[in-house]
């Protein structure tokens, strides 16, 4: 029941906002619905915490520790983003960058996007997982081109085409998976249910699953933004409205990685080798290296941080590929931390860009003097994302590095080089932006403090104190992914 509320709320909100999304109180509806979703998510999470995995709706929905933590995270970040977007979008409207119709569109699609992501996480059917993933892409494509500038349209077109192509490969992988499962489980919808698949994964034909995984990794990997399938990501992140950048980077990438990991479990169960893991490690390490060196030469602030997202997704993919309790635990924590930190960074970046009316790194200066809150939160956020203690990302990266040193020592230098390059690149550029005098074209605006503060506090607290429920979920997931 609560599951239904959880998933239906954004859908209903999307329908309502499609009609009244341009009214003055539309942002409030947006916030309200997101918070309602989040609350339902917490109730659902409590249920999962107390009674274990939930299967509902005639086996259509399945919620276990892995999906529940991600879905609560999704609901949380989307609520804070809704709060942030209220003022942000209002200001964009005042600047004349979006009109009435586009506001309606924006709000409706925002909720639709959340719906699609939650459907991804909560469904038990890997076919539906694919459909929801495609829906998530489609609902954000036109949001990326919301400003209708040539660059925005180009970015959205790239996003649409590349993700469409990628996700098509994933569907082929899913067909192959169904083919293998049908042999064991029998025909019909049952053979696509994850709960059934995991039970019989040992009996699935290894050659077929190995082949399927190649397609799945290319397909979902495109959405995760793994190098060399990442071309759409920096464009889509930099040209869309900032709230969309925040949810794309903080949530969508996670969901895609989630889908990939779910498939990996099945392949591992069938092949009993490290085949899938090796592929993921390969993609991961290339992503880390390419993305971190790309950070060094970025001129656009949102682009720079989207490369940082690629880098972090690379780390998480690598860690999942490496396997073992410590790395997997680290990867799960890393997904959480990256999500929180990166979305909060995008919030502050959004403010900074609106203050300077530009996204160019060169032209953004003197944030400390201009607006101390935005300046400091950008600085601290960057330190967090670069992996400095005492923030949560340090913890997760430390865990992952420990596992790498233990299990694949030869790869340690590559990871370290990547991390160092990203660290240097980010801090050097951000330091330049926050210090110095405020330029003449600076115009102060009212920043949204709550979302940023909430995220940063969480990132800080989680570094020192791991709540029991989260710990238990992670342990269960580690057990599942073993």
């Amino acid at each position: 029941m609560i599951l239904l509320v959880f998933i239906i709320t954004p859908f209903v909100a999307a329908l309502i906002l499609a009609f009244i999304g341009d009214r003055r109180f539309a942002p409030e509806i947006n916030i309200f619905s997101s918070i309602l979703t989040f609350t339902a998510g917490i109730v659902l999470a409590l249920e999962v915490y107390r009674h274990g995995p939930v299967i509902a709706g005639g086996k259509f929905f399945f919620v276990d520790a892995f999906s529940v933590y991600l879905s609560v995270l999704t609901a949380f970040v989307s609520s804070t983003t809704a709060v942030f977007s209220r003022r942000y979008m209002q200001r964009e409207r005042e600047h004349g960058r979006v009109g009435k119709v586009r506001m309606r569109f924006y709000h409706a699609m925002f909720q639709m996007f959340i719906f699609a992501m939650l459907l991804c996480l909560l469904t038990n059917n890997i076919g539906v997982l694919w459909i929801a993933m495609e829906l998530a892409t489609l609902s954000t494509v036109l949001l990326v081109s919301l400003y209708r500038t040539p660059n925005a349209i180009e970015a959205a077109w790239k996003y649409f085409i590349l993700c469409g192509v990628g996700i098509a490969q994933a569907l082929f992988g899913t067909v192959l998976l169904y083919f293998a499962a049908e042999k064991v489980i029998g025909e019909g919808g049952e053979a696509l249910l994850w709960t059934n698949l995991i039970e019989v994964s040992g009996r699935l034909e290894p050659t077929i699953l190995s082949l399927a995984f190649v397609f799945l990794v290319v397909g979902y990997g495109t959405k995760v933004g793994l190098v060399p399938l990442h071309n759409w990501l920096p464009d889509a992140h930099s040209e869309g409205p900032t709230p969309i950048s925040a949810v794309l980077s903080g949530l969508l990438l996670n969901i895609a990685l989630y889908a990939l990991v779910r498939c990996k479990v099945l392949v591992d169960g069938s092949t009993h080798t490290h085949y899938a893991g090796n592929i993921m490690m390969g993609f991961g390490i290339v992503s880390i290296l390419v993305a971190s060196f790309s950070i060094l030469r970025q001129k656009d602030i949102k682009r720079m941080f989207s490369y940082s997202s690629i880098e972090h997704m690379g780390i998480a993919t690598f860690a999942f590929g490496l396997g073992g309790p410590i790395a997997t635990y680290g990867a799960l924590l890393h997904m959480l931390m990256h999500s929180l930190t990166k979305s909060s960074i995008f919030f502050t970046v959004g403010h900074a860009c609106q203050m300077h009316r530009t996204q160019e790194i060169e032209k953004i200066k003197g944030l400390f003097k201009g607006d101390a809150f935005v300046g400091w939160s950008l600085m601290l956020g960057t330190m967090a994302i670069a992996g400095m203690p005492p923030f949560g990302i340090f913890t997760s990266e430390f865990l992952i590095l420990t596992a790498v040193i233990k299990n694949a020592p030869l790869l340690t230098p590559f990871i370290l080089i990547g991390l160092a390059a990203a660290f240097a690149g980010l801090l050097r550029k951000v330091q330049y932006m926050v210090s110095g005098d405020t330029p003449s074209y600076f115009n102060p605006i009212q920043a949204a403090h709550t979302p940023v503060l909430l995220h940063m506090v969480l990132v800080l607290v989680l570094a020192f104190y791991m709540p029991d429920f989260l710990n238990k979920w992670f342990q269960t997931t580690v057990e599942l992914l073993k």
Partner: protein
Amino acid sequence: MNLQLLAQINSFLAALVLLTSFAMLSQRKINSLVTLFAWQGLFLSINTAVVGFVAAKHHLYISSLLTLSLKVILLPYILHVLVVRLKIRKEMETIVNIPTTMLIGIALVIFSYHLTAPVREMSTLITRSTLAVALATVMIGLLMMITRKHAVTQIIGFLAMENGLFFAATSATYGMPLVVELGVALDVLIAAFIFGIFFFQISTTFDSLSVEQMESLREDN
């Protein structure tokens, strides 16, 4: 009807699907491309119905009708209207010349044949041999998207890929469960509306639908 004949019809339709893929790869005029795409959908739809008959899978009839209405009637119609509205007539240049593209296409067919070998060995369905054609259709759609620089062509390539995927599901497993088939069709439909909007956005912003002018977002050092 005898099964042998149906199996022959099935593989013959598969050959026609492959042929339309290649025809699309070689076609320069957008109007003809749309027509070819509709033909491909028609062959696919008939094929699905035949497979449904052979395998006595009634949900395949629904898929077949869905394909017919969506990929033979609706999408070509939308594309046609867009082509007329946006006054696209000109023949377009390709990045790689057409004979070379054809050779790459043939290589892709052979590649798909090898890639699907394990499936063919394991499968007992009469449609198993068409899976290679299905994968080849996907790959050729991809090739078309890479080698063409026009938004409409890229979309047709994308839709051809979708055709190939649908074909793959039919030939590997007698179709995915109906929920999934419907969901995929829904996604395609939404995608159709989105690219429709896109065509207008691109043509009003850039004055033409060539993707070549969209190259400002690159990693320039």
